[in-house]
Every structure is written in structure tokens, then in C-alpha cells.
């Protein structure tokens, strides 16, 4: 009867009403309407017919009316689509439809209508509807039929979206419970989907690259959920992607590159482990097609994954593979002539590379040395802007290795090739040298001194001397900023003071130089402090042959002269003497060596220094300096305290009048 109404919209509404009204009167299993005459089959037939007719009416709407109103018609159609889709919904609700009936009757009939109507809008909507409305188990079991329909659809239908949605549903289904996974294997879901996608892409050679990647992205997610242990499947998907990408230029499309990042991040998220992702041979190949900006984004994603999961990268091969992947961060790629990188971003990137380097570790010294050399090879290509960030962590990794080897006995019968501290120091020397050329002399100096200390602990005198030489050269030739000089001097003196490996000659040379530098610092107070710090170079507690009382006194006296000169300068320049702080500091140093038992520091010397300070403080031209007063007062208190201690110390301090 409804056939009589051929006007599309009216027909649609009429049939929709029919569907609604008949809904609960269908002779479904267990319904009151079931009987000998009317069974589920009839119910199904009824709904299918209604569906078919409604679809025909719906499609007819497309062609009615003038061509210029096409857009308006399509909009109208879009609004009415749920009416048609309702039938499918009803079908899905019919309990009497089991898998067999779905397979034999329902799906084929529905698909027949969908394909034959040759209407783009209908096809897109209805395929999607089928996927959303019927249960996932059914889809799995009818995968062949379902996928077989896709190539028969109109070429303008957005198949990739529908396919992606299908795969998404199936992925979620797989994720919902482990019990359903065998089903996937049984129906060979992966290969069917893979083939279907291949066919779709082949059939649409003009599909934009974004579409291709989206499809493969969905397939990859599907694969990771359903076959997490089949790395070869995942690799296949990536391989297909590479094939499709090859022959094209590096991607410019922002959306496409975003999709690729999603594609590549999926295995990382799933496996929580870059090491597993590195086993996918096509993974790096996909990355080749990223422009340098996106390569950096992906590299950062990878590093963050490593840091979050504390992945141990423990072989040189893996390090090599990893650094190939993240090369966008390590060096300037060819097409990176363009924009200025934002400085803060650049710093953040390089700092994350630095942190990454800390995580590369193997307990086996040989392997660790290989790792260090691999990293070194890569970072040296990074250019002057990157080296100050990447060299220090590598240096400290190397020093840690040296320390580890220190603990082990030197094997005199060891292999020629085996790793020794000496070898590592050679590498270190060359590595730190690269910093001097950038220029980053302060950093290089600090690192050379660190290496010197490590060499000292290994009893390698010539190596330690070489490092000191490098540091001194840098100081003389490259470090001209006053503040930097002061810091450098402190580090030089502090390090040298701790060296026990040097013989007398070497030590003397280095000490002489250090005191020379100290006396030539720009500001007098800095000079004074550096010179009295040098006094410690001549007296080291735990080294009996370094207890030269005279040289200590010479340093302290020199410091006094400089302090005096500073006072005079202050008088001349400002009309008042400067603060007595320096004198009090020197007094403290006198006390230090006095207590250590330096025979050259006499009670008389201390006494006269105390008087000098007292006089200076009370003189008319002195500057008011409460800090210096307090310092002097607490020094005197200290001396009093030592007197009260009694014993050997008390005896020493006894003669001093405070």
C-alpha cells in the first residue's frame, strides 16, 4: 500500500511512521505476535522491504528538482537520513536474528541495496550505520562480505573514514576482553583488513596522503590491540605506509604529519618501550619522510617515552638506532635553513637530549665504552650551538666509567683492545677540546679540571698534567672576563690542592703558574683572596711532603701586601680606607696554619696582625663596616674559645693576647 506514495519525502515519512507503529508488533521470537503464520522471518522480511523502499525514495530525492538546488536537496536529505537508518536499527533489535540469519539474509540484502543505489550520500551513511548498529562479533564473522562491498561503492564515498571507524570498533572490541582475541585470529581479521585497505588505496590513486596515513594509523592501532605480540604485523603496516610514501617529497601537509606522529606514537604507547619499537624495521623509514620540524616533534615524543618509562638503552647498536631516529634534534637536517628556532625551545630540546644521554648505560665496561663512542660520534655533528649541552653529560658518563674501571684490577694480560681509563681519557681530551673551539672556554676549563682529578685518582700523572695544561692554556688565552677568571682560579686552586699524583717538578710548575694568575686578577680584593687561597697549595694535610711552611707564609705575606695596597688605593680614590675585612680573612688563615703546626707562623706574627687590624679599625679614615667588625669579633671569640679548650690547642693559643 505504501508503494502507492511515490513522492519521496512524503513516502519517507509515511514509511517511517509505519516502521514506528509496527515496531513492537513484529513477530519476533518470544513476542505475542509470533505464531505459525508469522515468524521472525516474516518480521525480517517486512523490515527489509521497508528499508529498501525507503532508501529508494531517499535516493530519488537527490535527482528531483533543478540542478542549481542540488546543495539544498543534499542538506535536506542529510536531515532525513535517520529515518532510513532507523530500519537498520530495528533489525539490530530483533532478537530472532542470529548470526546465521544475519549472514545469510540480512546483511546480503542490506548490502545489495546499498551498492545498487549508487548514491554517494546513502552509501556513506548506510555503511557507517551498519557498522555502528550491529554487534562486533557479527562484523568479525562477516568481514569478507563487509569488506567486499567497499570496492563496489561509488568512488567519491569517503571510505577511509568508514573503514577507520570499523577498525576502531574492532580495536575496542579486542581491548574489551582477552577472550575475544582467538576469534580475530580465527577469521584472519588482520590480513583481510590489510588487503581491503590495499585495494581501496589502489582503487583511489588520487587519495590524499592524509587519507592513506589515517587508514594505516587505524590499522596499526587495531594490530597493536589484537596482535600485540606480532611485531611483524605492525612492521607490515608500517612497510605498506612507507611504500605509499615513497616517491613523494617530504610531507608538507600539517594534518598528514600530525597523523604520522600519531601513527608512530602508537607503538610507543603500546609497548611503553622504545627498544621494542626499534625492532620494527620500517619505523625509521617512516620517519625519513617527516620534515625536520616534525622529526623534532617525534624525537621529543620518543625521548619523553624513554624518560617516563625509564627505559634502559643498554647496547651500542640500540643507541645507534635511537640516535638515527632522533637525528632532527642532534643535528641540523638539510632542509633546516628556514626559520629561527625559538631559543627557549632549543634549550629545552637540547636539555632533553642531555638527560637522555644519562639514561644510556650498560654495566659491561666494554659495551659502555662503545655506547660512549657512538653517542660522541653523533653529537659531534651537532654544531657549536648544541655542543655545550651535549658534551658535559657525555663527559660525566665517561668519568663514571673511568671510576668503575678504577675499582677493577688492571689485567696485565688483558686484550689490546680492552677499555682502559687511559683510552677513555684520550677520548675525553678530544671531546672537551671541541668545546674550546666553539668558544665555550669556561665550561671546557671546568671539564678539563674534572678529568684531571679523575686522572689523579687513576695515578696517571702525565694524563693529569696534560689536562691541567689544557685548562691553563684556556685560562691564559680565552678567559678574559673578570668574574669568570675568579671562578676559574678557584677551581684551578681547589683542584690542584687535591692532586697527589704530581711529582715535585710538575707540582711546582703548576703551582707557580696558579699563584701567578692569582696575583694578576683585576680587582685587588680578588687578588688578595686568590693569593691566600694559594697558601693551601703548599700545605696539604694528608700529604706529608707537601708541608712547606715558608712558602705558606710567603703567600700570606703577599696577601697582606695586596690588602695594604688595596687600603691605600681606597684612600687615594675615595678619601677613606676600605674595610678591614681582607685583613681579618688573612688573620683567620694565619690561625689555620698556626693550628696545623706551621712553625713559620709565630705568635708574634699573629699578635702584630691583630694590632694592625685594631689600629685600622679605630683610625679616623676607616670606613664603618659592621660586617667586618662582627667578623673580627667572632674571630677573637674563636681564639678565646680555643684557649679555653685546654690541651695542646689551649697551650698554643695561651700566649696570644686577645
Amino acid at each position: 500500500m505504501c508503494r502507492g506514495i511515490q513522492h519521496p519525502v512524503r513516502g519517507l515519512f509515511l514509511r517511517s511512521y509505519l516502521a514506528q507503529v509496527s515496531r513492537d508488533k513484529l513477530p519476533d521470537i518470544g513476542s505475542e505476535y509470533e505464531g505459525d503464520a508469522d515468524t521472525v522471518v516474516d518480521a525480517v522480511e517486512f523490515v527489509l522491504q521497508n528499508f529498501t523502499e525507503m532508501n529508494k525514495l531517499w535516493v530519488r530525492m537527490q535527482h528531483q528538482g533543478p540542478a542549481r538546488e542540488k546543495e539544498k536537496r543534499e542538506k535536506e536529505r542529510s536531515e532525513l537520513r535517520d529515518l532510513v537508518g532507523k530500519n537498520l536499527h530495528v533489525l539490530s533489535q530483533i532478537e530472532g536474528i542470529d548470526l546465521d540469519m544475519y549472514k545469510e539474509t540480512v546483511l546480503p540484502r542490506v548490502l545489495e541495496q546499498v551498492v545498487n543505489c549508487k548514491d554517494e550520500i546513502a552509501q556513506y551513511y548506510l555503511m557507517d550505520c551498519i557498522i555502528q548498529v550491529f554487534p562486533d562479533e557479527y562484523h568479525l564473522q562477516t568481514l569478507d562480505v563487509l569488506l567486499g562491498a567497499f570496492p563496489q561503492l561509488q568512488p567519491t564515498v569517503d571510505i577511509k573514514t568508514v573503514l577507520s571507524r570499523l577498525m576502531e570498533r574492532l580495536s575496542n572490541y579486542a581491548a574489551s576482553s582477552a577472550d575475544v582475541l582467538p576469534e580475530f585470529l580465527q577469521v584472519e581479521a588482520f590480513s583481510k583488513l590489510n588487503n581491503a585497505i590495499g585495494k581501496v588505496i589502489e582503487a583511489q590513486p588520487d587519495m590524499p596522503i592524509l587519507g592513506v596515513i589515517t587508514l594505516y594509523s587505524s590499522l596499526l592501532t587495531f594490530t597493536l590491540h589484537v596482535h600485540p605480540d606480532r611485531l611483524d604485523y605492525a612492521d607490515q603496516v608500517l612497510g605498506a605506509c612507507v611504500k605509499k610514501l615513497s616517491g613523494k617529497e617530504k610531507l608538507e601537509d600539517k594534518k598528514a604529519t600530525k597523523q604520522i606522529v600519531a601513527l608512530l606514537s602508537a607503538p610507543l604507547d603500546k609497548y611503553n618501550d622504545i627498544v621494542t619499537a626499534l625492532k620494527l624495521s620500517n619505523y625509521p623509514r617512516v620517519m625519513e619522510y617527516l620534515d625536520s620540524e616534525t622529526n623534532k616533534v617525534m624525537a621529543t615524543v620518543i625521548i619523553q617515552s624513554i624518560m617516563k618509562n625509564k627505559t634502559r638503552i643498554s647496547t651500542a647498536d640500540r643507541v645507534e638506532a635511537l640516535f638515527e631516529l632522533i637525528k632532527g634534534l642532534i643535528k641540523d637536517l638539510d632542509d633546516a635553513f628556514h626559520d629561527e628556532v625559538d631559543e627557549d625551545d632549543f634549550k629545552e630540546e637540547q636539555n632533553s637530549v642531555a638527560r637522555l644521554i644519562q639514561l644510556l648505560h650498560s654495566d659491561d665496561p666494554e659495551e659502555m665504552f662503545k655506547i660512549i663512542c657512538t653517542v660522541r660520534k653523533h653529537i659531534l655533528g651537532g654544531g657549536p650551538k648544541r655542543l655545550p649541552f651535549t658534551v658535559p653529560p657525555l663527559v660525566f658518563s665517561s668519568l663514571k666509567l673511568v671510576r668503575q674501571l678504577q675499582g677493577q684490577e688492571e689485567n696485565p694480560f688483558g686484550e689490546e683492545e680492552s677499555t682502559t681509563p687511559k683510552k677513555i681519557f684520550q677520548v675525553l681530551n678530544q671531546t672537551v677540546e671541541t668545546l674550546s673551539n666553539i668558544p665555550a672556554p669556561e665550561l671546557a676549563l671546568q671539564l678539563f679540571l674534572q678529568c684531571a682529578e679523575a686522572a689523579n685518582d687513576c695515578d696517571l700523572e702525565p694524563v693529569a698534567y696534560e689536562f691541567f695544561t689544557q685548562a691553563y692554556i684556556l685560562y691564559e688565552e680565552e678567559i678574559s672576563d673578570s668574574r669568570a677568571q675568579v671562578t676559574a682560579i678557584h677551581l684551578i686552586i681547589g683542584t690542584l690542592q687535591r692532586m697527589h699524583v704530581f711529582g715535585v717538578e710538575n707540582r711546582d710548575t703548576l703551582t707557580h703558574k696558579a699563584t701567578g694568575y692569582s696575583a694578576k686578577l683585576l680587582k685587588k680584593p680578588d687578588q688578595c683572596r686568590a693569593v691566600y687561597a694559594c697558601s693551601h697549595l703548599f700545605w696539604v694535610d694528608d700529604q706529608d711532603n707537601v708541608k712547606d711552611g715558608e712558602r705558606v707564609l710567603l703567600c700570606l705575606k703577599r696577601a697582606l701586601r695586596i690588602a695594604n695596597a688595596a687600603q691605600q688605593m681606597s684612600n687615594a680614590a675615595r678619601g677613606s680606607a676600605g674595610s678591614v675585612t681582607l685583613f681579618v680573612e688573612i688573620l683567620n688563615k694565619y690561625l689555620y696554619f698556626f693550628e696545623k703546626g706551621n712553625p713559620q707562623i709565630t705568635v708574634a706574627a699573629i699578635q702584630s696582625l691583630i694590632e694592625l687590624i685594631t689600629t685600622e679599625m679605630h683610625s679616623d679614615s676607616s670606613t664603618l663596616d659592621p660586617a667586618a667588625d662582627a667578623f673580627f669579633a667572632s674571630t677573637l671569640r674563636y681564639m678565646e674559645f680555643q684557649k679555653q679548650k685546654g690541651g695542646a690547642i689551649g697551650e698554643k693559643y695561651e700566649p696570644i693576647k686577645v
Partner: protein
Amino acid sequence: MVLVLAIGDLHIPHRAPDLPPKFKSMLVPGKIQHIICTGNLCIEEVHDYFKTLCPDLHITRGEYDEDSRYPENKTLTIGQFKLGICHGHQVIPWGDLDSLAMVQRQLDVDILVTGHTHQFKAYKHEGGVVINPGSATGAYSSFTYDVNPSFVLMDIDGLRVVVYVYELIDGEVKVDKIDFKKTATASAH
């Protein structure tokens, strides 16, 4: 009670990738009133992280610090105590307690917080207390072998300060505490 966190020598990212997660989970914002940092963070990110823990942040410069504007030393007063901070690479010989005592006298402080050696120390002498919180990340040090990550929390209450040291040993956080009382005469100037 005033909680003061003393922490330093993290050397991120030169020598360590990050704070140990067990420490991170202990250091929550809002619990600490002051942070005293001996230096060698080294990068701004660490500075920002400390700021989120507590806005009252005092830092002195370590030789590897990226920001060269941090002062060489700093003094501040918390309650009845005067505290001084100095990284320590400037004090020679490094780690020498007598030389550090001199700095303490010079800065005229009750508590001197210093670093550089990556070795925890809490040492009382006639002029006051010297505290070295060690390295919070257990960073490599030419001075100390086998550095355990450590930091210090000081609880200042009137004339008394309780120093809690947290050390990460073999994956477990161990806590120790030391009491110091300030005598009234020591503060007379």
C-alpha cells in the same frame, strides 16, 4: 615550626636526568616555608620546579649554573636563626671544615649551608653549625665516591633547630635527625 628545605648540587642535566622519584613524591608544594639551595641546579627548569614547591627560594651560584646572576653567597634570617648560603667551590680547601668555619664567622651566621662536595655533613663548632645537604640526585663528584642522593629539611622552632637528613640508600629513603640548640650568648653582637 618553620620548615626549611636545604637542597643542592642536582647537576641536571649534566650529571643526572632528574630527581629520584621517591624524593619527588615527598617534596610537595605548600609544606615548606623556605628553600635554601646551594647551587649547581643547573638549568632554569629546576629553578622553576623549586619555585612551585615554595615561592621563597634562595639560591647561590654554583660553577655550572646556567644563570650567572645568582649571588656568590647570601644571608637570611628565619626566626631566631641567621642562615648563610654559599656553594663552596670558592672555599679552599674544598670541604675543609675550618675554612668553612671562617666563612661562617665572616658571614656572621648561626647556620651555614654549603655544598660542592656532594657529601652530607652536619657539623657543630663553636661558631655555629655547618650543613651540607649533599647532592639531591646523587650526581657524580670528583670529591666523593658513591654519592647517595640526599637533602635536608630543617625544622626551626625558637632557639632549636632539628635537622632531618633524607638519604636514598639502595632504593630506600632513610631518615636521620640531629638536634641543635642555639645558646643566647652566641647571638650577642
